[in-house]
């Protein structure tokens, strides 16, 4: 188990390194004077010089990266090109809403897909049809479109939820949750619908399996066969698929935060990307990648706990 954890952590670090290297690589690919291109219309000789200094553009690529890495490890991610603020502080200030979203979306997606999948496997019939249709809609409608529709119906017309904005946890858990309901639904919908189909499939297979038959034949309670034995066997393969879904969902945070006007890391990334504020873009990309890595590690842990073959072999 420890070796498994160590391996996943190393992988996670590798991923972060790759993403961080990506920015440098891309900047290096800019033909001509990179600083000039980046600053575009705002270019003045002074700014060009400053940017070149900031991004270490005059040094060879590996040195650039190494300099950045040394700083990054110590928590220094540079300063924003737009307002000179420390990137680390900028991102930190926006962590809470995004973290809330990521955690809630993960929980909701996992819970909903398991519940939906099991329910449609056991009841079949109209529930399965409903889940299928939901899956279809979830696939066909990008998260931000769902968000738009949800806002129109539930926020503007029905006024149950706020149209936009984020209420920090310190202002009260009720209001905090209320401001997050619509965004979380928008982000979890397609992932949950997708994964629930996998869970349903696995559940049906588990219920059809030889061991389910043997246990039933020898008198095990129906409840136990279904919810203790078959369910566990069904969740295990479904977890792998959920990891992929969640990665996509976490990526869609940027769009959702924009639609809902949530002052999180995602909307920061979008605004900095549109304004070519590279250090911020890089840091936010790393932040999200870190989220994905952690979520994947947690899912892997859950998988290892449920599946003895992983931890014992």
């Amino acid at each position, binding site marked *: 188990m420890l070796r498994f954890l160590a391996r996943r952590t190393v992988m996670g670090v590798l991923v972060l390194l790759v993403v961080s290297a990506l920015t440098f690589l*891309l900047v290096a690919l800019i033909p001509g004077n990179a600083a000039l291109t980046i600053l575009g219309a705002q270019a003045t000789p002074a700014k060009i010089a400053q940017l070149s200094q900031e991004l270490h553009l005059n040094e060879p690529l590996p040195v650039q990266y190494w300099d950045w890495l040394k700083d990054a490890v110590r928590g220094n991610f540079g300063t924003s090109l737009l307002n000179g603020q420390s990137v680390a502080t900028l991102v930190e200030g926006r962590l809470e809403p995004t973290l809330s979203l990521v955690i809630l979306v993960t929980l909701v997606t996992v819970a909903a897909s398991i519940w939906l999948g099991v329910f449609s496997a056991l009841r079949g019939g109209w529930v399965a049809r409903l889940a299928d249709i939901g899956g279809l809609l979830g696939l066909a409608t990008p998260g931000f479109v769902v968000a*738009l529709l949800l*806002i129109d119906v539930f926020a503007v017309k029905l006024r149950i939820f706020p149209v936009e904005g984020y209420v920090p946890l310190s202002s009260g858990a009720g209001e905090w949750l209320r401001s997050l309901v619509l965004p979380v639904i928008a982000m979890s919908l397609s992932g949950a619908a997708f994964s629930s189909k996998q869970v349903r499939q696995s559940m049906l297979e588990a219920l059809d399996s030889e061991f389910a038959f043997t246990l039933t034949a*020898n*008198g095990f309670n129906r409840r136990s066969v279904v919810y203790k*034995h078959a369910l566990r*066997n069904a969740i295990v393969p479904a977890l792998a698929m959920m990891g992929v879904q969640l990665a996509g969902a976490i*990526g869609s945070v940027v769009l959702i935060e924009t639609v809902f006007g949530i002052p999180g890391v995602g909307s920061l990334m979008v605004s900095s990307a*549109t304004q070519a504020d590279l250090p911020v873009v890089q840091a936010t990309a790393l932040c999200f990648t870190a989220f994905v890595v952690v979520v994947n590690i947690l899912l892997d842990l859950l998988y290892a706990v449920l599946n003895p073959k992983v931890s014992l072999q």
Partner: protein
Amino acid sequence: MVGRALHIRQVSWVTAAAWTWVAAVVFGAVFASLLAPQGSDDQNVLAALQGPSLQHILGTDPLGRGLLVRLLYGARPTLEGAAILVALTVCIGGASGLAGGYLGGRADRALALISDIAQSVPGLLVGLVVFAIFPGNLDLVMAVTGLFMSAPMYRIVRGATLTVRNELYVTAARASGLSHAAIIRRHLAPRLARVIRVQASMMAALAIVIEIGYGFLGLDVPSPDPSWGGILANASQYLSTDTWMIVPPIVVTGLTILAFGVLGEVVERPARRRRRRTPSRRPLGTAQPRSSKSAAATRAPADGLLAPDVFAEPSGVESAAEVPASTNPRVLLSVRNLSIETTGPRRLTLVDHVGFDVRRGEVLGLVGETGAGKSAVTRALVQPARNTRVQGSMIFDGVDLAGGDKRKLAAIRGRRIAYVGQDPMSALDPLFRVESQLVEAIRTHRDLSKREARAAALRLLASVRIPSPEIIARQYPFQISGGQAQRVAIALALAGDPELLIADEPTTALDVTVQMEVLGLLKELQRDRGLTILLVTHDWGVVADMCDRVLTLYVGEIVESGAVREVFKHPAHPYTAALRQADPHLQAEDGKLTFIPGAVPAPGKFPDGCRFAARCPLALDQCRAVHPQLADLEPEKGGHTSRCIRANELRRGAVHV
């Protein structure tokens, strides 16, 4: 090769619709300037935000531009971007999947690692980073995003490659000197083509979602050029006041994504049949009625052929009226008229009016080839398979197992009837320890504390002759051997101290030496606990060792039944006789391997007469014409039945097989 490429498969209407839509969208995007020569920026403020009209079929946007026109032109960046992304995933994912799957070893591991890293990075974010550095360069963004989204394609192609590579004909091709390139071209490419096509469609759907996201953020095309995402963003600003505007882009993008999803086989086609969860039951009364003629006719004359009019019935029905379920207290289980057929588009009869009694304390063997229906019978006793229909009665101590009273059945399972299956490695839940499953079995049937149950579990393991039960108890099923697993399965079955044990080929999956041990164990348990065993097997050696009586099944029917000694010494049915001769254990040292020529008739294609006639050396014309009944050859002594009209000749030795 050409012939195969032109092979027309059945295409569902959904797939056809998807292709049509995709073609329409592509056509519209490519020929937009021909279809709408006024261009995408034909503004007319007076016509702003109108609903559908004759002039603008889908309405207008805030600047009075027709939505249909904007969507037509706006399809271009989306389709172009998606095409680039898909092309990249196919090239990179496909090539690396092929390389990894085919070459294996370190190359495979390295590629797997790279793929794992790539899929941990959400595609959308990568795109944003690229946009930040190369603003407005949609092509580059989609290319880099595609790079990071190659992981699924890689996995699928690698999987398909591995499957093909490990197939024997590829090994044969290599052995005959075919080069790697030729193998790839000839064997892999056709298989991979379909897999790649399907995955590429799926990727296209995702790519469109991503590109629309970029468009929504205003990143993909410079204004006033339209893009689907941009139109959505625009419409979202007027959502409450002019709701119509958002409808066409949602519908168009949604349909396009769905269409690619269908082609990517992510969306199930509605033609899929729904499977029933429980088998249906028809009341007994619908069994075919029989004339009373056969009442007298089923008793055979002492000599010669059984009277021809015995076989006047078109099908071998033993109706419940004729031979009712036994009320003899020595009979534990009485099966009558058991018929099992599959539901679904093709009705196949698996078991055809089978009837037998299981007497207390005996070991009854059920013998037959694969497909004869033995497992169908035994599994129906426990729980009929989902896609079958069971008719007839299976009376166990007054309770009809086919009856469906769930509570009564639940009370019987485990406590009075237990089951051991063929494959010990799949009989137990792989995620729970042996001990846990045994304890649960014990506590289901007896009121014990966890500690007491654990002790009982260890005793149970000892009683099935498992050495060091404490160690085995803590193991998971995948950690123990087949023989040990089967013993554990037997222990599980005995946890409720049942009277009847159904053993469905319990030793088939085991090594020969282990077979002997497990059979010996079963015999011992039978003696010590007075167990009644219904033993399914295809091995006559096992029958000789273990069974008191035996039933032979052929194509869903009983063809012979009787005491083992009798059946062995004087088989009364050519099939039984032939099976005994074909028994590999009994073959003469250097003689030819005897087998029964011909093949078992396919279900649904039963001949009119005797089902064994085609392969029977003793067959007469009458055999092929009339379906024979099961007749009791020694009604006074009781219990040697046969379905062959020449049974007595065979028994006497007047004819041989």
